[in-house]
């Protein structure tokens, strides 16, 4: 699997660190235990398109949001997570 890093170009997945779901929003410190449980443990886990966090650990070291098909490993889009944050 090769991931097209927006800064470094297409690189092998072994250069990247996988960090899981990108769309989880960290609750505030005083949020309820249920909200925290939801954030820490529960996942959508779809078979299909999924937004994931990958860090280009052995490259530019940027955190990236990779939109990938979990059933085929096809990658649709990769954006720098900082830019994505600004756009949203």
């Amino acid at each position, binding site marked *: 699997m090769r991931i097209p890093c927006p800064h470094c170009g297409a690189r092998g997945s072994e250069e990247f660190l996988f960090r*899981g779901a990108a769309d989880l929003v960290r609750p505030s410190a005083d949020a309820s235990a249920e909200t925290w449980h939801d954030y*820490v*443990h529960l996942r959508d886990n779809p078979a299909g398109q999924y937004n994931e966090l990958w860090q280009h650990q052995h490259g530019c070291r940027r955190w990236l949001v990779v939109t990938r098909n979990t059933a085929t490993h096809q990658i649709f889009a990769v954006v720098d997570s900082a830019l994505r944050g600004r756009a949203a």
Partner: protein
Amino acid sequence: MSYSLLRIAREALRGGSGWTRAWRDPQPKPQYDAIVVGGGGHGLATGYYLAKEHSLTNVAVLEKGWIGSGNAGRNTTIIRSNYLLPGNEPFYEHSMKLWEGLEQDLNFNTMVSQRGVLNLFHSDAARDAAARRGNAMRLHGVDAELLDTAGVRAMLPLLAFDAARFPIKGGLLQRRGGTARHDAVVWGYARAADRRGVDIVQNCEVTGIRVANGQVQGVETTRGFISAAKVGLACAGHSSRVAAMAGLRLPIESHVLQAFVSEGVKPMLDTVVTFGAGHFYISQSDKGGLVFGGDIDGYNSYAQRGNMPLVEDVAEACVALLPQTSRLRVLRSWGGIMDMSMDGSPIIDRTPVGGLYLNAGWCYGGFKATPASGWCFAHTIARDQAHALNAAMRLDRFATGAVIDEKGAGAQPNLH
């Protein structure tokens, strides 16, 4: 038809004309007392024990493909009960005891081979951890032996003992561990369940779960609606997707685990060995091929195939432990989809939906658990409460904090 030596002799004289199919191919009935979703090892064992232990025979096991097409055919066939924690160890030991009597119980040769499972260690810290685990096992009445370097060398002189980076300092041995024939396990359970009246329905994919007033009503399938007051989900790998049909969101991610078989060679390895410095386990099948595997690929996946970096990682560990394998060719490799739970331990429990039960989260350790998983899940479904053996394997343990964290590493979906 019972299988026996006498039967084989008789059929040999009759040219095999008396053999019949091992289990029926029934049309699904419109209504069952209980439905098990998923015809893998765990689902079939559940069907079998529902009939055998709880006299429930109006039961169907629904399988979307054919028996043996999923993870039952995608594992490394290792059986063991060398767990640490009280929430796990009695359960896995029960499984081991069921393995030990399985062939007589099922009247099917599941080729259970208690050739031993040896977990190597390569440092003082790892020796301490192995001793602790071995002591925990013995406190639960399970066999465990701590071997020093000489003890391991006497068993397996072919290992790379004096490797500069990871010299072998000893190992934790469970002699009662070993392997079983993965296909025979599902065939044996399917046939034994069928003989007790359970319907094994293949090519019947569940597409929806009908719930009314918080109670399960039955399942929508590719072969029509089937009504049942009790529905058990045993579809690890795809648990999240199936549970979502009933509105549940699980503490599980699906990941791909690869495994490999080499070309057949003469007998060289008469036990199961795990490399303690990397994540690697290997045994030799009765056909002569080395069966081995390593870690999960490390990203969410429903594709039943992995990627090259992990292949390289596993090959490196293999050659580090067994240098003489460096020129062996790999015959086959495959990937299976694992329910990675957030604490590395499974779930066998009721769910917030009445009549809906969940058997999930097996990470990549489900094969060895097959008999006890079915046994405990059948108990949970039939009695509507957990047995003492699976009492800790609760769905709500992540919310309450009562996790079964074998590794002591906190919440992440890459544990085992």
